């Protein structure tokens, strides 16, 4: 059994593909990161990430299919599920080995699975675009924190960058402990060690909030409650569109 391990970065995964073609050894199992358990029998093939090799695989994917497909592979990688790397390696092999472009062959299970996972990641990103709630801080910047199911913040940032170009903001992923900070000029990746955030509801400590922040949260909650038509109440659809895992971060659903 061929066991590979890599550093759980996208470049690492592409390097893994490169190395397995070079060694003519393809993985049966892929372990992520250093913390992965040791395999009982046989050695683990540890891949050292190499940007140049990754680049070549990326270009290979594009030339064997399309640029959109390469981006699809990246987005599926962001799902971060334990089985995803192996699924992706199998998919990339299919793309590279086939004489025709197989990305549209939906009769193949691996193609369908990749597209389903892609759909899930994209809809999570779309939800985050909608459900992010900024809190205004006393310095006049805006802060939001969340715990998305998949690592979708990189996909959401261009949208927020365009929309909120005249306010400085931070969007923070509490689950993966990193975020993005826009300082009116550039967006940069940030990690905070001493974040004064209540991890139960993503709210900043009251001392950091702008004076009228609670007032607007109250206004919003009031508005939210007023526009519900009680005669049409439908909790099932409500939960379907607004999954419970988001509720604690939304001022309209929480206790203010």
């Amino acid at each position, binding site marked *: 059994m061929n066991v590979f391990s890599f550093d759980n970065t996208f470049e690492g995964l592409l390097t893994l593909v490169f190395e397995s073609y070079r060694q003519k050894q393809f993985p049966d199992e892929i372990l992520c990161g250093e913390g992965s358990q040791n395999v009982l029998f046989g050695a683990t093939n540890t891949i050292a990430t190499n940007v140049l090799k990754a680049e070549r695989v990326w270009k290979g994917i594009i030339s064997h299919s399309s640029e959109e497909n390469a981006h699809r592979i990246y987005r599926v990688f962001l799902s971060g599920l334990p089985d995803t790397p192996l699924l992706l390696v199998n998919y990339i092999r299919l793309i590279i080995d086939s004489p025709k472009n197989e990305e549209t062959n939906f009769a193949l299970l691996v193609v*369908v699975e990749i597209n389903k996972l892609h759909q899930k990641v994209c809809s999570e990103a779309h939800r985050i675009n909608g459900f992010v709630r900024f809190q205004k801080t006393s310095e006049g910047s805006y802060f939001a924190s969340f715990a998305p199911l998949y690592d979708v913040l990189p996909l959401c940032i261009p949208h927020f960058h365009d929309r909120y170009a005249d*306010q400085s903001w931070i969007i923070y992923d509490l689950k993966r402990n990193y975020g993005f900070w826009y300082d009116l000029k550039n967006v940069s990746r940030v990690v905070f060690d001493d974040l004064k955030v209540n991890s139960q509801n993503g709210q900043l400590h009251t001392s950091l909030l702008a004076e009228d922040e609670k007032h607007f949260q109250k206004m919003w909650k009031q*508005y939210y409650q007023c526009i519900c038509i009680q005669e049409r109440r*439908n909790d099932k659809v409500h939960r379907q569109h607004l999954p419970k895992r988001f509720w604690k971060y939304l001022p309209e659903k929480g206790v203010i």
Partner: protein
Amino acid sequence: MISESSLEKLKILAGAAKYDVSCASSGTKRNNTNAGIGNATAWGICHSFTEDGRCVSLLKIMLSNHCIYDCAYCINRKSNDIPRTSFTSEEIASLTIEFYRRNYIEGLFLSSGVLRNPDYTMERMVAVAKTLRTEHRYNGYIHLKAIPGASAQLVADAGRWADRLSVNIEIPTENNLKLLAPDKDFKSVFEPMKIISTNILESKEERRNHRNAPLFSPSGQSTQLIIGATDDSDQTILKLASALYSRRDLKRVYYSGYIPVNKYDNRLPMLNTPPLLREHRLYQADWLLRFYGFRSDEIVNAQNPNLDLDLDPKVTYALRNPQMFPVDINTADPLMLLRVPGIGTRSVPLIVMARKHQRLNSSHLQKMGVVMKRARYFITCNELRSQNIQDLKPEIVRQLLLDKKPIGTDDAVQLKLFYPMMPALR
């Protein structure tokens, strides 16, 4: 600028606006300009969902709930004794901006009761949109309601600032409209609609010649019909909707199940619950009109003036036209595939792309998301043929589809013949 008293106003004016069902924020792609605030995305974003399952995308609010009209179906009619209040345009503009900056909303949907006269009201609504665009440098979404009877000039002004305009027809036939809303007639509704559609066409033409020509209501116009307040049939409603889509180029027609807000008015029916299932079927039929290439007379006609509440309109169409089925998945025209129950706009492109690579069978279809429970009676694919609508006759397929339990074997078909009594609704 925004005080505690505005909390009370918000309560009244949001509550007054909630019966308007439109919530779309899609259709305009506008980038943020001059590092101002906001943009509009082509696909729209829902920011929350209320407990009735409707999406909250826009700050849906009334400028004022004072109204000189006395429409029987409306909560804000002048004869109702309810708290009345108004926002100033600056109040609305700054509330929109504050909500927008916190990512609560995608934009503003402004409506109003009719104050003094239609023009006076329209003028104040246009002022809000103008304030937002010019003073606040706001590039987000704005939906304005055009007041029936407003002048052409004001409607044209509104379209300059707004992304979408809408005029609500509310009641699908003129006689019933006059009965329930004595101050309105079809002319007052269709006139602004015509002005809007002419302006949209002109602006599109203009932009073909000059790239920077001003936009006019770039995401089009929409309207709303109340369902179940009058005895109008689904045929009347869908015929009207289909005409609006083709002739006035409407983006959306919304259907709103009637909620008895004025129970004392005996011109209106007494309903215990709003007709939500009928509303749902109408939306399904509307989708067939807009995305599936159906004509309204294929969905409802003189023999079947109302939609079947037990089965969706596509299934009823297929059962009425058994001669068109079964469809061969591997060769059929995409438009014909769209007509198969259980196959939708998502799976058709997948099928069309996949069948270039290999012949497809039912397990492929299942993986692609085709609802085989419905589709199986209407298709043939690359495998031994199973019993389809030609073998089973439409009545039996109907019974099988009504039963939501999984139908695994042909024995089930046999059994069903002995007790074909199904509860009508689940």
